[in-house]
């Protein structure tokens, strides 16, 4: 059995002061250079999360701007008992859902949408993958496959997977960012991972491509 990966970010103990807190405190006093550092530190992640939820580049750009602006306006409300990034992600997720709602002409959109599906709760494709599945595809073809595959997940699974497995947030931080319970995050993560695995199997299984594209 191969070694087991360790994931997630290191948890910050309550008595430790996260470096972002000093920047937040300076920004609260009107130091925009301090806030600029926070923007530069997290803009790529916020853009990525927004794009994963909205699936629209223009919306993701708008969400990124609005999330940082809203966070700046609400800095006084940041308690410091969570990480600044976790707090910022929560704002960005809410902004993203609002954008999605606008695109769907007012239809309610929530992080709970479409999560009742039974798909992915039990693996069906049990074929092993080729030893180096990525070698079968070029860089841009690979990116297309990964985008198409993750876009097929319900938003509530997609965002949990991105925060936990791509961004490296802990289960607790993910729950806090999304306003979900820890069991809900765990359940969604398992199903997201299994659904992605199942869908990628069509491309990566041994015996080559099967025409799933």
């Amino acid at each position: 059995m191969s070694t087991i990966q360790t994931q997630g970010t290191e948890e910050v103990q309550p008595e430790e002061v996260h470096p972002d807190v000093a920047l937040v405190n300076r920004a609260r006093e009107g130091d925009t250079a301090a806030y600029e550092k926070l923007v530069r530190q997290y803009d790529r992640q916020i853009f990525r999360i927004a794009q994963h939820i909205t699936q629209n580049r223009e919306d993701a750009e708008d969400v990124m701007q609005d999330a940082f602006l809203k966070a700046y306006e609400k800095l006084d409300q940041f308690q410091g008992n969570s990480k600044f990034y976790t707090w910022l992600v929560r704002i960005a997720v809410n902004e993203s859902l609002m954008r999605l709602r606008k695109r769907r002409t007012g239809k309610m959109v929530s992080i709970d949408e479409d999560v009742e599906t039974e798909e992915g709760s039990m693996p069906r494709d049990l074929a092993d993958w080729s030893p180096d599945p990525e070698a079968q595809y070029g860089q841009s073809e690979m990116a297309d496959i990964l985008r198409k595959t993750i876009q097929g997940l319900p938003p509530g699974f997609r965002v949990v997977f991105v925060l936990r497995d791509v961004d490296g947030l802990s289960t607790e931080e993910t729950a806090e960012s999304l306003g979900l319970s820890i069991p809900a995050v765990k359940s969604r993560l398992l199903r997201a991972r299994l659904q992605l695995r199942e869908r990628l199997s069509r491309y990566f299984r041994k015996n080559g491509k099967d025409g799933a594209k």
Partner: protein
Amino acid sequence: MTCSEFLAQLDDLIDDHVTATMRADLEEHLSGCDHCVVTLSTTRKTIEIYRKHELYTLPDTMRERLQKAILDRCKKC
């Protein structure tokens, strides 16, 4: 241990959040179940591939434009 019971522990196993006793039980199941070996290895690979490939990049020019727009708006607050 059944495959369903193994699956219930899959995330904790991948995330290295299992006790030594549970790990031993899971490894025992894996030693006799090729299906769960495949599920574990391909799920790990799924996570690894998504971590490795940046799907939505922000080009430097756009990044600078957005950063400037954000900070300009903040300064007007």
